[in-house]
């Protein structure tokens, strides 16, 4: 199909070299760049496969990577000139170490692109300066966090050094080190030049056939509904004509929300003023590393022979009316807001006190609810991808994210585990909630430089989604965690209720700070990298192992898959054979095309019959009940929907998550308790493990499911909303004599890792195959039934696994949280994905994926014969590797065999 356009598009080959007009006023690098102007006559001969909208860091990186991966006809549209929106005024810092393995990998790729790849491809220098990075710690916890980063860095070959105050002074003589606890020095960190990088990217992309068109605003996005009722991107409208394309990438920065609206796509970001100040010349500052003083919330970026000073304040200014006419524009700096950074900066580099101000840079940046970008295909419209909301890290993350985005577009899913950036991490009910966006974004912004502790929770915009047990559990002292908008039980405080209050913006903007805020005080006690005060998690865990506890897991996603092609869909979607007889429940994975695990869930096959909603859908054929972790419900939902759409299956997926509550009664005494409440025989013969049936509980119909997420005898009760409280009361009354207690997810996390169950997005991710994750038992490879990802698994099975999950325990009573480095015979082979304390085995237990240093197959011999050590904060601990969890390896307890 050839779309002939009236004006401004040119064939890929006819491009002219123009000097970059998009140079940042701060930049001295003029990089010639192949960029099309709309004022001459252009034509696009073929509908491009992808139209990228927005010529900032992300847009340029995305089109570059698309071109590199073989999309030779992609088009980038920029309303003004490259970098004109927010990229041109970015500080351009690049740190390599962050408290996330995926982010470390993304940053490493950005660094490769700007320091190496681009120069090799184009012969142009991007403006990259490798002056190093220095993280400042003013207290022990901060230095602990840095030591964690250092250990992680070893796995990735990122050189870093923990320096004493004196060593820091030697490195950076202008620094005040009197109040320092220590620093982390990363010699190969550096500074990027936004304009130079973007122009070089666009040059490299156009060389490979892509088109970059400036001065071409997008005025509309056409969306069509296909024969299956699926909304898909059809075309992009500009004042110069309409471009047909099946795929649009929204890299429009602070304008991304407006662009999303054109297609009916929600883009939950908010624009704020973000500022830095450029100083006059400072003698002796040349070649000094960039400084990030987290405790003062400021950074000091080397700018030739001067510094740029910026930071994250408690009271950022929101940009309420995002204007379309803001190219290369800045706001007046509000010094009263900025002043909090000056003090920190002067304290760190005292010569600043006597230094004048050359210029101020205060521009809009887009911020999101969790200070992470928004990426991936929008749930609302197929073919509409997001690459925005970068929280002033668009340059730093641009290379890695541009590559992932390109992969996402071409292969349907990214290569890495991008769930932390995926728009699907937010439930669709939140993404247009203005209050939620504003409050969460504020908190994330203000806490951006806070230490990332393992058990922190947000205080902003809580209580968005409450299950039927919320009130009663609050009264029982439940300390909630926030997941996907839900309040889910974390643990139970014996000193009475600790409810979550309305957000107080930490007292910013003159808002009265919450006082006597017990929940906040409890959170504060856990801000440590030592063992957190375990509250009663230990007693909750041991009660589950020795007695009986009840978990409220109502936040679970609860979907029905029905329709004529339901069986076909189930066969294709799920790795396990779920077509056992009705009444069976199967634990299974869902894979992407590359065999990576997109989800794990339980699928229950239902009897055909009339509708008994919410407990059963109407069906005269195959029907399945899907129970998925509540924190990943949106992701599961969209994964299933996309597969159904892509394969053209005729079936329905319906969401009943909010129509039912769910409690799970677990422990050796669970049968005794439930036998009093349920009207059904719960013996092993009558109600075996991995089965389900609709039964009567205290006079209410519920679906009982014999399953366990903690490795014990137990049942889940899926209960219609209105029956939740009476059934819960009946269970608690029956359990009283057995000492039943409430328990929460902190206990589930500990119990499940002890048992060796996976947590998706932790020790099971889209970049792990079930075989690597030790979940081969969920894959129907022995049958001939095809399923998504099967080829990859077969290939892996044939070639042997190059990486494999391993369970480690250590004898020292030392906490671990994940990201600790794994060494085999002194050689780094991987890092921990997930760690916790197992109270039953009374050990720290952890899981990580290891590779062979030679890139060879990771056999069980390789694991058995190695001497393993784990490095935590620079200290190594001897570890025992297990092929199977040391807890109940014979899997007797779920079968009710306690001896």
């Amino acid at each position, binding site marked *: 199909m050839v779309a002939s356009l009236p004006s401004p598009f040119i064939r890929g080959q006819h491009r002219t070299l123009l000097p970059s007009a998009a140079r940042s006023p701060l930049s001295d690098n003029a990089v010639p760049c192949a960029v099309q102007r709309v004022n001459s006559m252009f034509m696009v001969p073929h509908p491009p496969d992808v139209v990228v909208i927005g010529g900032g860091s992300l847009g340029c990186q995305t089109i570059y990577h698309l071109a590199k991966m073989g999309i030779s006809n992609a088009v980038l549209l920029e309303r003004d000139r490259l970098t004109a929106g927010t990229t041109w005024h970015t500080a351009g810092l690049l740190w390599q170490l962050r408290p996330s393995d995926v982010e470390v990998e993304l940053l490493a790729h950005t660094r490769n692109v700007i320091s190496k790849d681009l120069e090799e491809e184009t012969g142009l220098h991007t403006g990259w300066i490798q002056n190093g990075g220095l993280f400042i710690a003013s207290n022990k916890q901060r230095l602990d966090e840095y030591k964690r980063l250092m250990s992680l860095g070893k796995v990735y070959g990122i050189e870093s050094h923990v320096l004493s105050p004196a060593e820091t002074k030697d490195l950076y003589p202008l620094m005040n080190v009197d109040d320092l606890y220590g620093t982390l020095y990363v010699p190969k960190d550096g500074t990027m030049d936004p304009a130079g990088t973007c122009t070089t990217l666009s040059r490299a992309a156009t060389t490979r056939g892509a088109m970059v068109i400036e001065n071409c605003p997008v005025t509309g996005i056409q969306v069509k509904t296909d024969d299956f009722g699926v909304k898909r991107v059809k075309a992009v409208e500009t004042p110069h004509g309409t471009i047909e394309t099946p795929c649009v990438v929204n890299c429009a920065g602070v304008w991304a929300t407006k662009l999303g609206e054109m297609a009916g796509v929600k883009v939950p970001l908010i624009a704020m003023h973000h500022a830095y*100040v450029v100083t006059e010349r400072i003698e002796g500052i040349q070649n000094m590393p960039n400084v990030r003083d987290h405790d003062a919330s400021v950074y000091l970026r080397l700018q030739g022979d001067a510094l740029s000073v910026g930071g994250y304040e408690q009271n950022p200014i929101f940009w309420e009316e995002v204007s379309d006419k803001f190219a290369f524009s800045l706001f007046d700096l509000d010094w*009263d807001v900025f*002043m909090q950074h*000056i003090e920190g900066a*002067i304290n760190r580099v005292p010569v*600043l*006190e006597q*230094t*004048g101000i050359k210029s101020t840079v205060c521009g809009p940046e887009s911020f999101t609810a969790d200070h992470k970008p928004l990426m991936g295909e929008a749930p609302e419209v197929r073919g509409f991808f997001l690459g925005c909301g970068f929280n002033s890290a668009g340059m730093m993350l641009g290379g890695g994210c541009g590559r992932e985005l390109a992969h996402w577009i071409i292969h349907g899913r990214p290569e890495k585990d991008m769930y932390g950036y995926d728009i699907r991490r937010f439930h669709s009910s939140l993404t247009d909630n203005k209050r939620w966006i504003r409050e969460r974004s504020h908190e994330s912004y203000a806490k951006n430089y806070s230490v990332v502790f393992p058990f922190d929770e947000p205080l902003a915009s809580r209580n968005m989604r409450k299950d039927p047990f919320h009130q009663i559990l609050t009264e029982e002292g439940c300390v909630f965690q926030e997941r996907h908008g839900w309040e889910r039980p974390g643990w139970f405080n014996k000193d009475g209720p600790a409810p979550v209050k309305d957000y107080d913006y930490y007292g910013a903007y003159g808002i009265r700070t919450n006082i006597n805020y017990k929940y906040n005080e409890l959170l504060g006690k856990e801000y440590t990298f030592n063992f957190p005060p375990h509250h009663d998690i230990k007693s909750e865990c041991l009660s589950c192992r020795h007695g009986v506890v009840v978990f409220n897991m109502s936040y679970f996603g609860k979907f029905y898959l029905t329709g004529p092609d339901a069986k076909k869909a189930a066969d294709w979607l799920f790795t396990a054979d779920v077509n056992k007889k009705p009444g069976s429940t199967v634990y299974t994975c869902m894979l992407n095309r590359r065999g990576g695990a997109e989800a794990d869930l339980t699928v229950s096959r239902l009897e055909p019959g009339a509708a008994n909603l919410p407990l059963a859908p109407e069906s005269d054929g195959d029907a399945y009940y899907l129970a998925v972790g509540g924190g990943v419900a949106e992701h599961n939902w969209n994964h299933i929907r996309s597969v159904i759409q892509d394969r053209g299956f005729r079936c329905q997926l319906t969401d009943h998550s909010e129509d039912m509550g769910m409690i799970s009664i677990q422990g050796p005494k669970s049968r005794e308790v439930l036998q009093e409440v349920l009207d059904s025989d719960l013996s092993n013969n009558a109600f075996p493990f991995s089965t389900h049936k609709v039964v009567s509980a205290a006079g209410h119909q519920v679906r009982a499911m014999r399953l366990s997420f903690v490795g014990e005898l137990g049942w889940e009760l899926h209960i219609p909303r209105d029956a939740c409280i009476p059934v819960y009361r009946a269970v608690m009354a029956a359990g009283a004599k057995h000492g039943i207690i409430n328990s929460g997810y902190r206990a589930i996390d500990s119990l499940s890792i002890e048992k060796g169950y996976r947590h998706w997005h932790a020790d099971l991710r889209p970049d792990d195959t079930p075989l690597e994750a030790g979940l081969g038992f969920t894959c129907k490879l022995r049958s001939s039934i095809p399923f998504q990802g099967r080829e990859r698994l077969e290939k892996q099975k044939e070639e042997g696994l190059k990486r494999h999950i391993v369970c480690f325990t250590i004898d020292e009573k030392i906490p671990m949280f994940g990201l600790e480095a794994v060494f085999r015979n002194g050689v780094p082979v991987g890092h921990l994905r997930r760690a916790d304390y197992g109270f039953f085995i009374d050990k720290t237990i952890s899981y990580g994926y290891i590779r062979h240093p030679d890139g060879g197959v990771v056999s069980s011999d390789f694991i058995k014969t190695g001497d393993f050590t784990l490095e935590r904060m620079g200290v190594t601990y001897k570890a025992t590797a297990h092929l199977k969890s040391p807890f109940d390896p014979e899997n007797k307890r779920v079968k009710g065999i306690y001896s």
Partner: protein
Amino acid sequence: MLGRSGTIRGCYTLEFWQYRALSSPPPELHRVHYPAGSRSRKSHAEPGAVQLSSAQINQVLKANEYSHTLPRGPASHGVLGFYSNTLPSNQPSEDRRSNATCLPGRGGVLFGVFDGHAGSACAQVISQRLFYYITVAMLPLKMLQELEWAVEEDRAVPPLLEWHKHPQDPSCLDDGAISFHSLRNYWQERLEGEEDGEQEEGVTSALVDAFCRLDYDLSVEAQAQLLQSSPRKMSLPGEGLALSSPLRVALSGSTTCVAYVSSGVLHVANLGDSRAVLGVQEQDGHWSAISLTNDHNAQNPDELQRVLGEHPPSEHRTAVRHDRLLGLLLPFRAFGDVRFKWSPEMLNQLYESGPNVRSAVSGSVWGLPPHYLTPPYLSAQPEITRHLIRPADKFLVLATDGLWELMHRQTVIQLVGDHLTGLQHQRPIIPRVDMTLGSLQRLLLERQRRVQAVLEDQNTATHLLRHALGDDGYGAVAPNRLAKMLSLPSDLARRYRDDITITVIHLNEL
């Protein structure tokens, strides 16, 4: 007459029938204004003076706070609301304030501050009666006729004013009969004499007329009392003149500054040295102060010329001496103060009257003033300023001289402007070219302290009070200084600060 009560519903009252007894003791200080040289702002800790805590400071500062928001719509006449506060220095205070909405006729909103001298009696009466005179002066004759018929036929009288009062503001002690009689005479005369003039300029003449008429009535009422209490009529022992007795009122005095807002037009009628200053926000956001009043005292050359011009050249050296009328009185225009207005004969009759009259006034005002040759020396004719309210006119500050002697009008307007704009909208700072980060940091910290002071007070008038008393010389409040100013024993306080009364009228949204 007494038995006839007007309709008193809700907050609408014809208040002069409804006076409560004033419980506070009679004034002890009878000073003809403050002595020159009392402006010393040097504060020194008195031995034994107790330093106030910040909570106590706030208690003192906020005791007389009052604010009111007018309902949006035509009835607000373009006034969004007002903040008011008063802080006594004299015990009891000689300042008064009044705020009210005029109900009938063209309507409008009235605000007044009144600074009494030689006692509070005059200021008290003016604060209660003047707005009725203004209302009557402005009412169309047809409505006055209806009012008259209603009174005559003993029917319910429609309310004239809706007062916006702090509950603790002192009320009058008069039985109301005399003042009502006078007011009724006033409207009856208007009914007999005038033609109806409802034009704009009518407001100016109505204001002048109301002022002059009230001053005339005070004078007449006092003369009537004087004649009744001639030496032949012996009063009982110990029976002094009531605080509100017409003689006492007329022998004391009061400056007056009244603002009247109606249909987007502001009129200010001024008598004496209180001031009305308009806060205007310029296009670039900065604040300008526009004075709508002239002080009527010796510092104002025009006013000095006016006084001298009203007396023969032979009196040039005596009519105003030491910047005072006849060497005694600071303001050149005031209500009351009949010993600067009456004929010598009348005054002599006063001075010869019985001890009960004499007891009403202190020695300092006893006896004919020196060189009292061609009375009246003192005028109650107000100076009127008319101003069309523009969108840039954000607020009007009315205050007695207690504020203006402590603070320049530009500072006052700036403080109110900053306060109303609040923290988020603080005027952006633009650092000078040669500023270092360190000097900028100090400047910003200073601003922050100021902003915190802004947030302390909801009431703009209180905010002004706090700054006026606690100013550290750099635009911020020094808590110590503020505490000292407020801890002064009452006998000393008057040397450092006068009574202060402030009303800030909010005219336009920022």
